[in-house]
């Protein structure tokens, strides 16, 4: 006889789950009771949000489905931010929640929440289990939807009585999606059309998003871009897909993108988009986004097309299929070499950052850190100014080497996500960069780091403000720093020590010399190569700003390169 909980674990194992993250509680206790001997390692975080972000980190760095477990009511609602994050950033995630027993559903029982209803608009698929018999099919279907097409979050809500009830036997199921009469797919003619568009273009560019990485098409994409040799840039989630040393690569595009990338995007007459949603942080004012361009959009999810601006040619399908088809076609045609355009768009006049930005000690500090990282390290950034500085400065060819909460912008993401990344990649150097605001949102996960002795290198860029909000207040709200002052922050060094994690502080003076002193360099090297977890608190100037910046609602061509001199 098998309990429902044992059937659930058996089915998870059959889906390849080796690791899951969670936090126990009343309704999910039967599942925890059955964990021993299941073959699945469970990681106890110190908050359900920590669990779901850790599962996301694991999924983002491996491409496998992340699994998070929580109990009913508050346990389940604490998952919601992570579920929304996974939806926005296309992360394959299965959340399993306990629910009050079947007879109590709908009675406002203790710790009852309609988590199915709460997460309806955030999940790709969800199911409230009603019979023991359906568990294998439901789990198989949930994993299918989490990882298929555009990956996303799934929630499976299981009443506690289903987990306790016994059944003679059950076997994991396989799910076959029902056929739809006309599944969308680009027809073969698209390659001719793009070649014709390229032949007529004089200023083509390529924009690379996360889809290129999620589809596993990075090698094909790199070959294609080498062949096209047109100015290319990436969204924050597309970073790493294109080797930064490529002669045609202009860096990140969008609100805090490089001047070269945003200018080329504004001037282009043909925009090839590879797996990007084109959200408002990338486009700026949609009515003035790439105003002279025809748009070709390679995308697996039809729902992402025409959201901001209609595209001229949608190429729907897995990029692992459509990119090679396109590449094969351009091999058969003579294309213009776009030499003059390349010289202008990729030329030295459009320097990446203004000299004043490069002189910023925080940017120098990040440059020092990143330049000393071992190859194929993974950098996680939380949300805020440090995130954009890191995105601007980290130059890696490792496609899954930069992880952040991009679409949702969820502060508190990085530390728990780093736990998932480090567990997935135990031999990889994992660097977690946070701000002083975001770090405190999931600071309790220091306990998880300590318990598992994960050698995560944690950095807090401490400007004693909610820096990005303060920057906006400075630039757009007449310096009214309403409720962004964090000058009474705790001493993070002492807090880390309380969690038995070594920590130290560095201040901007260490970055005033260029190159940095041997002592500072050695200190950073020791930190990055230590076999233990460690926290470095970097004291940053309170009013340091991130530039370039495109003000909200402005066109990409209207980026600010530095702050206006004060009157």
């Amino acid at each position: 006889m098998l309990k429902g909980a044992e059937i659930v674990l058996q089915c998870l194992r059959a889906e390849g789950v080796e690791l899951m993250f969670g936090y126990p509680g009343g309704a999910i206790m039967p599942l925890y009771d059955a964990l021993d001997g299941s073959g699945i390692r469970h990681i106890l975080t110190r908050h359900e949000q920590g669990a779901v972000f850790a599962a996301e980190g694991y999924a983002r760095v491996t491409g496998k489905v992340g699994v998070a477990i929580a109990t009913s009511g508050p346990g389940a609602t604490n998952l919601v931010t992570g579920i929304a994050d996974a939806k926005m950033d296309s992360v394959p995630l299965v959340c399993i929640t306990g629910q009050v027993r079947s007879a109590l559903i709908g009675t406002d029982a203790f710790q009852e929440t309609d988590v199915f209803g709460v997460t309806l608009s955030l999940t790709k698929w969800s199911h409230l289990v009603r019979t023991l018999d359906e568990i294998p099919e439901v789990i198989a279907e949930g994993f299918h939807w989490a990882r298929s097409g555009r990956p996303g979050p799934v929630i499976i809500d299981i009443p506690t009585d289903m987990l306790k009830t016994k059944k003679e036997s059950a076997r994991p199921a396989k799910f076959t999606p029902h056929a739809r009469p006309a599944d969308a797919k680009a027809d073969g003619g698209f390659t001719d059309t793009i070649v014709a568009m390229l032949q007529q273009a004089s200023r083509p560019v390529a924009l690379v998003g996360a889809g290129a990485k999620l589809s596993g098409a990075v090698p094909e994409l790199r070959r294609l871009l080498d062949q096209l040799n047109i100015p290319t840039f990436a969204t924050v989630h597309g970073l790493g897909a294109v080797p930064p040393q490529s002669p045609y690569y202009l860096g990140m595009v969008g609100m805090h993108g490089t001047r070269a990338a945003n200018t080329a995007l504004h001037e282009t007459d043909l925009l090839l988009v590879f797996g990007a949603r084109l959200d408002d942080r990338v486009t700026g004012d949609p009515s003035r986004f790439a105003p002279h361009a025809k748009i070709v959009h390679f995308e697996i999810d039809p729902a992402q097309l025409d959201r901001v601006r209609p595209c001229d040619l949608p190429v729907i399908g897995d990029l692992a299929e459509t990119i090679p088809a396109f590449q094969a076609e351009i091999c058969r045609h003579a294309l213009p070499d776009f030499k003059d355009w390349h010289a202008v768009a990729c030329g030295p006049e459009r320097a990446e950052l203004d000299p004043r930005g490069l002189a910023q000690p925080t940017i120098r500090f990040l440059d020092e850190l990143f330049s000393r990282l071992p190859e194929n390290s993974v950098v996680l950034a939380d949300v805020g100014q440090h995130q954009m500085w890191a995105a601007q400065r980290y130059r890696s060819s490792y496609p899954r080497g930069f992880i952040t909460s991009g679409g949702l912008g969820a502060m508190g993401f990085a530390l728990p996500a780093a736990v998932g990344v480090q567990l997935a990649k135990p031999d990889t150097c994992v660097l977690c960069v946070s701000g002083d605001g975001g770090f405190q949102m999931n600071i309790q996960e220091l306990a998880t780091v300590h318990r598992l002795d994960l050698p995560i290198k944690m950095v807090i860029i401490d400007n004693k403000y909610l820096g990005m909000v303060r920057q906006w207040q400075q630039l757009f709200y007449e310096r009214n720093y309403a409720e962004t002052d964090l000058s009474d922050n705790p001493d993070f060094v002492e807090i880390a020590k309380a969690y038995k994690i070594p920590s130290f502080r560095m201040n901007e003076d260490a970055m005033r010399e260029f190159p940095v002193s041997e002592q500072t360099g050695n200190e950073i090297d020791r930190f990055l190569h230590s076999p233990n977890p460690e926290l470095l608190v970097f004291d940053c100037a309170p009013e340091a700003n991130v530039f370039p910046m495109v003000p909200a609602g402005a066109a990409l061509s209207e980026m600010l390169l530095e702050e206006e001199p004060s009157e």
Partner: protein
Amino acid sequence: MQTFQIRYRNTQGTLMRILTAVSRRALDMPSVHADAGENDHEVTLVLDVNPKQIGQLCREWYAIPDVIKVRSGAAHEAEWSNAHPPTGVSIQRAAARA
């Protein structure tokens, strides 16, 4: 006003997901009519939408796992009664423009 007919498998939450795609765009739903069929169910919606919203809604409905077919009213019958989304139509249009 535009009429939409959406055929779907009556699995948990599918009808709600179809309706959420409308409500999240802050659109009113003056008419909603759902019918149970032998195998599949169908919901008919009448909405005041512009051409861009028609495209977005049809694509978003199509992305819901248990939606089987999406059709829109007379004005767009030609475009939307075939494959969804109508990639072929867009490609031909783009080819003509190129």
